[in-house]
């Protein structure tokens, strides 16, 4: 469960303070499927970074699964990202020199899992996203949709509670985009993973149970 209480994020540039988030109050239950929409510069990426424990709020409280992580150290946040959060990016962010299995294994490296178990879980994860026949291909040998599926496999390999997807279909054609969205839907329905998806695309946003619209750092719609 995610809970934000009066969260502010303020950047100071040359003594001018810019608020990227203003007094955000939001609550996301476990197993929800949420879309966050907003124009560029609205603060949705900042919100996502804070939810994903990549950043800390300037003011306010962020409570993740009952723990106030807003005062956690970098090391503790890294641990939370590793265990509880899976990231999917617009640019896939796969390592070109690794094959699919090795790419998917990266989070397990930092979870201290031994290598045979690592490989087993990575393969299982790839089968879950429908890439059972592409395990030893490198990203450059695969299509954009397949690459994004590797990224999803990587996000779910450590069985996180939450998946954060930042414009996951932004670099894909419509058909591949639809496939990716259906994978998210499956994960949400079958594995009860909380999905938080940032998108520009109103059609994709509507698939979610709830849409949060953000403008100039404030939530303008939450339904």
């Amino acid at each position, binding site marked *: 469960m995610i809970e934000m209480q009066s969260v502010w994020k303020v950047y100071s540039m040359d003594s001018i303070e810019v608020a990227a988030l203003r007094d955000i109050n939001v609550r996301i239950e476990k197993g929800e499927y949420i879309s966050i929409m907003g124009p560029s510069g609205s603060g949705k990426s900042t919100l996502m970074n804070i939810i994903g424990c990549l950043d800390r709020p300037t003011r306010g409280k962020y409570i993740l699964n009952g723990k106030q992580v807003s005062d956690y150290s970098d090391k503790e946040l890294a*641990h939370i990202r590793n*265990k509880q959060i899976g990231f999917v990016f617009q640019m896939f962010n796969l390592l070109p020199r690794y094959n699919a299995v090795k790419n998917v294994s990266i989070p397990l*490296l930092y979870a201290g899992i031994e290598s045979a178990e690592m490989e087993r879980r990575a393969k299982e994860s790839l089968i879950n996203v429908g890439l059972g026949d592409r395990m030893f291909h490198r990203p450059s040998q695969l299509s954009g949709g397949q690459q994004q599926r590797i990224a999803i496999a990587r996000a779910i390999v450590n069985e996180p509670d939450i998946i954060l997807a930042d414009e996951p279909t932004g670099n894909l054609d419509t058909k591949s985009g639809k496939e990716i969205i259906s994978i998210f839907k499956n994960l949400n329905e079958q594995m009860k993973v909380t999905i938080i998806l940032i998108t520009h695309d109103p059609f994709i946003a509507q698939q979610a149970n709830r849409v949060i619209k953000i403008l100039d750092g404030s939530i303008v719609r939450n339904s």
Partner: protein
Amino acid sequence: MNSLTYIFTAFEALLSNKMRSALTMLGVIIGVAAVILLVSMAVGAKQYILEKFTGLGTNLIIIQPGKIQTKGGNFPVAGIASTHKLTLSDVRALQRESTYADGVFPMLLGALIVKYHDAHADTTVLGTNEQFTRIINIEPQIGGFISKEQSDAGRNICVLGYNIWKVLFANKNPLGKIVKLGNFYFRVIGVMEKKGQSLGFDMDDLVYIPAKASEKLFNTDSLFGIRVRARSKDAVDDAVKQSIEILKRQHNNNEDFTVITQDSMLSTVDTIMNMMTVILGGIAAISLLVGGIGIMNIMLVSIKERTREIGLRKAVGATHRDILIQFLIESATLSSTGGVIGILIGIAGGFMIQSMISGFHISITLWSVLVAFFFSAFVGIFFGVYPAYKAAQLDPIESLRYE
């Protein structure tokens, strides 16, 4: 992440850019090979020189005319004559009075042509006494050496060095034959065995005569030097002191001569050669340092290129420490792999040089190998710290956006 995984990850990263890794390693390879090669050559040269000296026996005390080292208190006082030379009477005094010495021989040297019928050879004539063979460990091969009686009487007899015998007599028996040295005639009583270099001369090119006869031959009583052998290694210091006392008495209390022991010469040679080893090693180490800077440069480039990778690793749970260690191991792997290759090349190069220069033995010491290896690993870690620290400091959000 366990240490084995770190090392695998480092190898994968380095292998994905083989050419770059190889070129970066080359700097370290050259540095380490240079350290090994130069140090082993210097140590080999040192052993070569020491062998030549210790071949004379470590109990030997060398007395030369003139004062080389001034310890004060012996400045010539007006009115007291200073002879500044060593003579046969000094040798007799040493033989008579020294209790710590078990042998004394004079050396009176001169260059001459030795003739027998039509054959002749350039030679160095050494005027000495009967104790020479015992102290220097050389034996006559044919006939005998100068006897005590012949030495005391200063008879015109001579013993030929091995090469001189070959040139003058073409392997025939020379005993009893008369050779001409300068304007004097000498009867051959023996031929020395082949010995090679010793005492700074080629012993095979010498002609040995009684010292007293050489005084007449060269018309001088001034010796090139005196050699004294102490009874044992422990007696060397006492023998030196005693010899100085005896000779000072002979020289009106003037210490106008120099007494050197093998040990002091050995330690001088040792000091000089050790310094040379350190200097050569130091010069080679500079090239290793340059190799280290090359590693740092490449690591910085590599981190720039892999900013998104670092961002991703951090996003999925890598801590500061994980990233720091990953890049440190990459640079340490580069430098220590280079170090191992460099050691092998250095050793191979050493043996190549050894096979090209006859009589020279390189000496690959374990310490030079270990020092080179650990120094190269250290260089990799030292020059890897800054890039790795920079990588660990990267902000994951910025890094993931980096184009």
